[in-house]
């Protein structure tokens, strides 16, 4: 199949002088917005104690551990701003992402030991479950940096129990292990109760000499018999017991390395633990990249920085999606699937780091006379019509058949509506796409370039409506909502306006409510809101999008559960004809 992929047809073109001139403002607006996101990310980095204070105790911070552990240039952080329950600490207290360790891709997660010594906080279990899902979806190891002091007790009701609570990751670890996905854990510090299970539930435990894991920590061992209240005598007694347990906490390496052997390895230094993880990761099952690569990796022919000019921050402006894709894929080459059908979406095969991926994205702008063919009104890109929905169904089915991971790019205002659209079967075709995606069982990633709206956000590989979305990225131009705020205001208040008008009442109070609803929609669809609530797994500078695509493709092809031999691929042959 080498002739198919070594040199594929070219995609995109160089920017023209005029394009460069007129997009200066957009570049500035985008970089300003990215600086604002970077500020929010920096606040998460600086949460809790300063690094110097942790280092003075002889410990590394989670950030220092990650830097030592992860192969340079491969770290792709995820969920950095995720804080769905608005913790005052500004974080769920776990840091995670995709990165290579010892040359192999892994999902990596660690407790932030600068914040309450890595305690459980509200929203953290949801963060961890996203991470275990990611390891499951990509079929790659999960690597933990455990350093968890237990629960933030005054807020336990927000995360301890329920179907998706702080204990859920423990059985998710078991689930990963049952699927043959190893969970490796470097263990530091004091890890009582929840922290203890966080430490014991992985597959292989790499302990630092000063760490401990225990069913219960010093805090509860010294006060486990409630007596209906507290008095001075009890307080004195507690002080004595606490001193004793602080000096000798339960579950230290003396117990769990020397006696139980739960800790398979014990290391004198913090770096030693990380070296141990690196060594193990290098031995994890994986295919050599050459097994799946279809061509030599090469950078795009055009600079990824061009995307600052090509993706308008202004949501109403049209642009050329193909030009953006050309800045993200190897050699700016592709094989487009059905270019003469469904012009509102791009579907095609591209290479990322030498691996074959299926790319799907909304095209923008006027779609030409006579389209959509079933209607007497014109079509515009961003909307989905009958042909586009059929084409995407067709394409993902074939990607599933050929075991090709899919990268979606959304900038969609929704599926065409109205009785004409209903007669054209769009409701059924949208749901068919959800069915088709679900049936593929190949990993997918999504980039919400600008708008993710209405059912189209679901059907185009959105994280809400399938199990295969590994992660969803946003840009500073992203906005996600069920519909535009003004559309929602009309849907909510149109009949009320009629009633008030017929009753001879003033319209202004209703108009004020409409404006308020539209403003709220705007505020609750911004990228930072989407990242905090988890609608986006990370907001990524547009120049870094390719780095995440490389991580996704490398991880997806590292150890896939099923294989299509290259010479059995049917999709490239269908494209070639």
């Amino acid at each position, binding site marked *: 199949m080498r002739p198919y992929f070594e040199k594929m047809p070219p995609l995109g073109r160089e920017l*023209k002088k*005029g394009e460069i001139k*007129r997009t200066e403002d957009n570049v500035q607006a985008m970089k300003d917005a990215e600086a604002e996101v970077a500020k929010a990310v920096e606040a998460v980095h600086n949460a809790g104690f300063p690094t110097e204070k942790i280092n003075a105790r002889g410990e590394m911070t989670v950030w220092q551990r990650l830097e030592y552990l992860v192969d340079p240039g491969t770290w792709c952080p995820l969920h950095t701003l995720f804080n769905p329950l608005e913790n005052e600490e500004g974080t769920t207290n776990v840091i995670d992402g995709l990165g290579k360790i010892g040359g192999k891709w892994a999902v990596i997660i660690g407790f932030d030991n600068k914040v309450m010594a890595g305690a459980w906080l509200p929203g953290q279990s949801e963060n961890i479950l996203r991470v275990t899902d990611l390891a499951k979806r990509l079929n790659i190891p999960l690597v933990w940096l455990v350093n968890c002091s237990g629960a933030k007790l005054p807020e336990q009701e927000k995360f301890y129990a329920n179907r998706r609570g702080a204990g859920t990751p423990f059985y998710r670890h078991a689930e990963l292990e049952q699927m043959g996905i190893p969970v490796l854990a470097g263990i530091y510090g004091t890890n009582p109760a929840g922290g203890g299970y966080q430490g014991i539930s992985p597959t292989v435990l790499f302990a630092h000499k000063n760490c401990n894991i225990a069913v219960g920590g010093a805090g509860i061992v010294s006060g486990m018999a409630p007596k209906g209240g507290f008095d001075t005598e009890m307080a004195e007694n507690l002080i004595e017991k606490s001193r004793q347990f602080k000096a000798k906490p339960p579950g230290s390496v003396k117990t769990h390395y020397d006696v139980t052997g739960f800790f398979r390895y014990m290391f004198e230094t913090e770096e030693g633990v990380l070296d141990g993880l690196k060594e193990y990761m290098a031995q994890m099952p994986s295919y050599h990249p050459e097994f799946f690569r279809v061509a030599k990796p090469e950078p795009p022919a055009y600079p990824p920085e061009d995307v600052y000019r090509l993706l308008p921050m202004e949501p*109403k402006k*049209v642009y050329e999606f193909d030009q953006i894709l050309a800045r993200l894929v190897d050699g700016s080459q592709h094989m487009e699937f059905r270019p003469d059908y469904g012009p509102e979406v791009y579907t095609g095969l591209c290479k990322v780091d030498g691996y074959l991926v299926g790319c799907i994205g909304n095209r923008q702008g006027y779609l030409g006379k006579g389209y959509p063919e079933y209607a007497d009104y014109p079509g515009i890109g961003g909307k989905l019509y009958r042909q586009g929905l059929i084409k995407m169904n067709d394409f993902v089915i074939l990607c599933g058949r050929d075991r090709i991971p899919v990268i979606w790019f959304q900038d969609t*205002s929704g599926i065409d509506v109205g009785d004409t659209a209903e007669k054209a079967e769009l409701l059924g075709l949208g749901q068919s796409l959800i069915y088709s995606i679900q049936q593929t069982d190949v990993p997918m990633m999504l980039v919400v370039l600008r708008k993710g709206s209405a059912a189209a956000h679901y059907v185009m590989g959105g994280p809400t409506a399938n199990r295969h979305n590994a992660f969803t990225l946003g840009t500073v131009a992203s906005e996600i909502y069920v519909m535009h705020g003004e559309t929602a205001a009309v849907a909510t208040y149109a009949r009320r306006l009629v009633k008030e008008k017929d009753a001879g009442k003033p319209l202004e109070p209703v108009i004020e409510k409409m404006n308020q609803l539209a403003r709220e929609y705007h505020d609750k669809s911004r990228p930072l809101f989407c990242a905090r609530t988890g609608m986006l797994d990370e907001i990524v500078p547009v120049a870094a999008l390719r780095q995440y695509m490389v991580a996704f493709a490398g991880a997806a092809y590292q150890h896939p559960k099923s294989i299509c031999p290259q010479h059995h691929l049917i999709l490239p042959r269908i494209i070639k004809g």
Partner: protein
Amino acid sequence: MAEKILAPLAGKIAAVKIKAGDKVEEDDDALVIEAMKMETEVFVPCDGTVKEVLVKVGDKVEEDDVLAVIE
């Protein structure tokens, strides 16, 4: 030689960024047409001088209508 700027789609003129007598370069902004809630920018097709602009903001245009002439 004169070159016409044609409307690429039907819609309403949302902005006019050139006027008669302007020296323009290929790919400069010329006009913006609003249709179906989206703004489509129309660019100058060649280097030259704007001979005339035949529309103003708010005008409704049909696909292929002449919007301006460059010479």
